[in-house]
Every structure is written in C-alpha cells, then in structure tokens.
C-alpha cells in the first residue's frame, strides 16, 4: 500500500503537480488576510505591557519549573561530554599506537632483508 502511494507521489512529483501544490501553499501563506494585522495589533494593545521582571520566587507555584533536574542535567551533559572525549582520545591513541607498531615491524623486516 505504502509502495503504491510512494509511486504515486513520485509520479506526481515528476509531472510537477506536487511542486505546484507546494508553491500554491507558500503563496497563500504570504498573502495578507484583510484585517488580520489590525486584529493582532488590537489584541496586543489590550494586554498591559510588562515593565519589569517578575522574580521566580514571586511566581505562582503552577508557573514554576523545577530547577534542580535542569541543573543536574546541564552538569551531567558537561561530564558526559568530557569523559566521552577522553574515551575517544584513548581509543584513537590505541589505534595510532597499533599502526605505529605494525609499521615499525614491517620497516624493521625490510631493513633486515636489505
């Protein structure tokens, strides 16, 4: 079923129909609806402007986000990335040292053969 739909989509794309639909959608989004801006402005002006910060401590309990999980998450991210980088660095060191040992062996054999 999904194959058929995908095939139809490809067919419509190839004939440019989908492109026309997308273009029509984009154009319709850009056309201003008469009066919409006036409604938006009047809605904004009906609300009193905020003049200063409202400290978190003065917010009602329902409007507050618990800070501790975010703080712990931020600290954990830093630790995970730092340890992850050290782990990555040690892996790359192991690879390079293995390559170095192999090359030294091969070059040593060549030198012995000469």
């Amino acid at each position: 079923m999904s194959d058929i739909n995908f095939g139809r989509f490809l067919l419509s794309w190839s004939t440019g129909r989908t492109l026309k639909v997308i273009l029509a959608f984009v154009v319709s989004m850009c056309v201003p609806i008469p009066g919409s801006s006036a409604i938006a402005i009047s809605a904004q002006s009906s609300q009193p402007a905020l003049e200063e910060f409202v400290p978190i401590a003065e917010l009602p309990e329902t409007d507050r986000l618990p800070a501790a999980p975010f703080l712990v998450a931020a600290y954990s991210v830093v630790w995970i990335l730092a340890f992850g980088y050290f782990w990555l660095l040690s892996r790359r060191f192991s690879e390079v040292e293995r390559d170095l040992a192999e090359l030294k062996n091969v070059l040593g054999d060549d030198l012995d053969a000469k």
Partner: protein
Amino acid sequence: MTRRLFNPLLVVAAGMFAAAPILVALAPNEVTMGLVAKIVYFHVPVWFMMFLGVFICGIASGVYLFKDKQSADRLAVSAAELAVLFGLMGLTTGPLWARVSWGLWWPWDVRTTLALILELNFVAYLLLRKYGGPGSEKLAAGLALFGMFNVPFVYVSVNVWRTLHPETTVVPTLPGPMAGPFWWCVIAYLALFLVMLSGRRRLEEQRAIVDRLRLAHER
C-alpha cells in the same frame, strides 16, 4: 614541555573538578532566577574555553598559512576539535537554563544565533579537514581565521543588540560568594582544556609519525 606538564595538569584538573560541585552547591542562589542560575558556574566557563580554542586555532592557522609550519597546523586542528566540544557543552547547557528562566529552549536572539554560527564554523573546519582531501588544510586555516574574527561579535552582541542574554558586565560584577566558585570553575575548565589540548596535540604528532613511516615504506 607539554608532555611534562600533562600529569600535573591532569591531577589539578581532576582535583578542581571534584571540588567544584561542592563550591557550587554552597554558593548563594541568584535572587531573580533562583537555583537554575547555578548553571552559570559551568555554562560561562565552557564558553570561555570555546573562545580560547577558537583563538588558538585561529592564531595557529594564521601561522600555518603565512609561515607554513606543520606544528602550527597540528595545534590548530587540536584546538578546533576542543572548540567544537566546549561549544557543544555551551549549546546544551544554555537551553537548559533558558527553559527554566525564560520559558523557552532557544530564543534565536543575536547572541545564541552567532554562537551557533561560530560552532557550525568549526564543525565545517573539522569536516573540511576530514573529507576535504589533499590541500584542504589551507582552506580550513582560512575558515578558522574567519571564525576567530567572529568571536568579538559573539561577545559584544549582548551589549549592542537587544537580547534576553545578560550583558558582559555580569561576570566582572559578581559578588564575592558567587565570584569565588565561578573563578574556581573557570580555572578547573582551563586545566581540563589544557590537558585535552596536550593529549590531542600528542595524538596529531603520533599520526604525523605514522604518515611519515607509511611514506617511507611505500618508497
């Protein structure tokens, strides 16, 4: 020099990192943002380290471009990787702070957008180094210089444009009980940065030796 400093720096970084959470926990809460503002103790230092990485990469790239020093290029690529790492830390911790204090994950203001562009600049640098093929080192060096000149714009953007971010005057005016843990964390991250840079640069040197031996073997 850097090899001799590696072990002492590692001990200093580990010790300071172990003590940092205790100092941060004991520091007083900021009055308007509360507990979440304690993200400042690692969000700002990681950006300092990101900028440091960018400057080292930019200056080393300049030396490589104009003096053709291979050692400068190895330092540049090491610093670029750290710039991306610390930038990633900053770009992750920032939204976690913003979600609680501003109510949104990402404000798309000038500071955050420029910081994201700076990070992408150095991601592009690393991609260019990895997949650009022969000769991409010089192109990447030019890109690093461009990125370095972006840093002052990122830094002063909060003073020039209207943004949700606090201005640059916040850090110098931190009160004593907050300034102590803050600068402790900055030094801890600096030690961590230097340890990582030293290790990463050593890796590049080892890789250069491998490349030289491969060339000798092929001949």
